[in-house]
C-alpha cells in the first residue's frame, strides 16, 4: 500500500501540491483525475522519488521514499514501473531493445530467456513481430504507448504508475490501451495508479478515483461515488462544462 501524507511542493511561489493525503490500496487500480496542469504528473513523480517534496511523506509499505537514499531508494524504485506520457522510449534503441532493456540492465538472465520474455510481453500488448526492429520515431502514438507498457510490464513490478496513458490517442486506441491495462492488471495483480482526465472511460477500469484540484485531493471514492459527488468542482469536471461557467 502507498500512503501519501501531507505532501506539499511549491514551484516559483506557486503551491502545486498543497498537503496531499491519499491512500492507494494494494492490487487496485486507482485513477487520479483533474484538469490539465493541476499537478497530477508532479504527484506521480513525487511518488516514485523523481522529485522531492518541500514537506510530507510518501510511504511505500511504511518506508518513506522522500527520505530514502542510496541502496534503500534503489530498492524502493525497483518495486515500481513508470509509464510516461510520451512513452520516454530510448530513441537510439529498437522496440525490441527498449522492451528488453530493463532485463539486460538489471538482471543476469541468459540472452535466450531475455528474448523469450521480451517476445512474450510484446505479444501481450498486441504488437506484431514486424515492429520489433523499428525505432520509436517510426511508431504511431498508440504503438509507442503499447511498447512503453510492455517495457513497464517486463520488470514485473508491484506498482505501475501511468502518466496519462491515453492522451492524444483516438477513441479505439484509447479503449485498446485501457483494455490492455485491465487485462495485464488482472494477469499480474500489480497496484496501478493512473493519472488521466479521460471521462467516462476511466470509470470503467478504476477501483477508486481521486480528484486533484488546487493542490489538494477534493474527492475520493469508487467510480459510482465520484459520479454522485455533490462537490460542484467535481461535477463541473465530470460533466466537461466549459471553464468560464465556473467563474
Amino acid at each position, binding site marked *: 500500500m502507498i500512503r501519501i501524507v501531507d505532501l506539499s511542493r511549491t514551484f516559483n511561489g506557486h503551491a502545486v501540491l498543497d498537503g496531499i493525503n491519499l491512500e492507494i490500496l494494494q492490487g487496485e487500480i486507482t485513477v487520479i483525475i483533474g484538469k490539465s496542469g493541476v499537478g497530477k504528473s508532479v504527484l506521480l513523480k513525487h511518488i516514485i522519488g*523523481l522529485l522531492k517534496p518541500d514537506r510530507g511523506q510518501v510511504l511505500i509499505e511504511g518506508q518513506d521514499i522522500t527520505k530514502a537514499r542510496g541502496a534503500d531508494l534503489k530498492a524502493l524504485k525497483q518495486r515500481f514501473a513508470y509509464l510516461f506520457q510520451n512513452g*520516454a522510449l530510448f530513441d537510439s534503441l529498437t522496440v525490441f531493445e527498449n522492451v528488453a532493456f530493463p532485463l539486460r540492465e538489471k538482471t543476469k538472465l541468459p540472452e535466450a530467456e531475455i528474448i523469450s520474455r521480451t517476445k512474450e510481453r510484446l505479444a501481450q500488448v498486441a504488437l506484431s513481430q514486424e515492429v520489433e526492429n523499428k525505432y520509436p520515431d517510426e511508431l504511431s502514438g498508440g504503438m509507442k504507448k503499447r511498447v512503453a507498457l510492455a517495457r513497464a510490464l517486463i520488470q514485473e513490478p508491484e506498482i505501475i504508475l501511468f502518466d496519462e496513458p491515453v492522451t492524444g490517442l483516438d477513441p479505439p486506441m484509447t479503449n485498446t490501451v485501457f483494455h490492455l491495462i485491465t487485462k495485464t492488471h488482472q494477469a499480474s495483480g500489480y497496484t496501478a495508479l493512473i493519472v488521466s482526465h479521460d471521462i467516462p472511460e476511466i470509470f470503467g477500469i478504476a477501483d477508486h478515483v481521486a480528484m486533484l484540484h488546487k493542490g489538494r485531493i477534493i474527492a475520493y471514492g469508487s467510480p459510482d461515488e465520484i459520479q454522485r459527488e455533490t462537490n460542484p468542482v467535481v461535477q463541473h469536471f465530470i460533466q466537461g462544462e466549459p471553464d468560464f461557467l465556473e467563474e
Partner: protein
Amino acid sequence: MINLIRQLGRQTLSLVQEAGRMQLFLLEALGLFFIPPYRPRSIIKQLQFIGVRSSSIILLTGAFTGMVLGLQGFYTLRKYGSEGALGSAVALSLVRELGPVLTALMVSGRAGSAITAEIGIMRITEQLDALDTMAINPMQYVVMPKIIAGLLAVPLLTAIFNVIGIWGGYLVGVVLLGVSSGSYFSGMVQSVESLDVNGGIVKSLVFGLTIMLVACYKGYYTARGAEGVSRATTQTVVLSAVLVLGWDYILTSFFM
C-alpha cells in the same frame, strides 16, 4: 549605480554557484567510474564516437596546421638564415600549443555539441527520468562513459594531430621549399624535450575533461524544449572554447 553593482554581484554569485555545481557534477561522474556496474562497453562505444569519428577532422586540421607552420616558419626563419631550425619550430609549436588547443576546439565543435544535444534531448523527452525510474543512475549510464572516453580520446587525438602536423610541415618545408630533411628532424630531436611532450599531454587531458564536463553538464540540465537544446549546444561550444583557452594560459604558465 547601486543597481549596477547589485547586478554585477548577482551575476558573479550565479557564476560561482554554476562553477561549484559543475565541479560536484564532475566529482559524481568520476566517482561512479569506480562503482559497479563499470560499463566498459559504453566507454568503448563513446571512445569510438569521440575518438574514432573525430579522427578524420583531426587528420585534416593537423595536416593543414603543420603545412601553414612550415610555410610561415620557413619565410620567417629565412630572414635570419635559420631555415634549418624549421623542424624544431614546427614541432615545438605543435607539441606545446597548437596540437592540444586545436584538437580540443575541434573535438568540442564536433563531439561536444553532439553530446549536449543527445543528452539534452534525452532530458526533454524524459529518457533520463525513465532510466531513473528503472533504478538505473543516468549519471552512470549516460554521463560517466562520455567523460572517461573524452579523457582518453583527446590526448590520443592530440598525438595524432601532432604527428600529422609534423609531416605537414615536412611536406611544405622539406619537399616543396627545399629545407634539408636531416636538419628538419635533427633540430626537432634536439629542441623538443620531455617537458614539452608531458606539458602537451597534461594540457590535452585537462582539455578533454573540460570539454566533456561542459558538454554533459549543459545537456543534463537542459530545459524548455527544442530551444533549450539549441541554447545548451551553443553554450557548450562557446564555453568549452573559452575554458580551453583560459586553461591553456594557466597550464602554459606552469610549464614554461
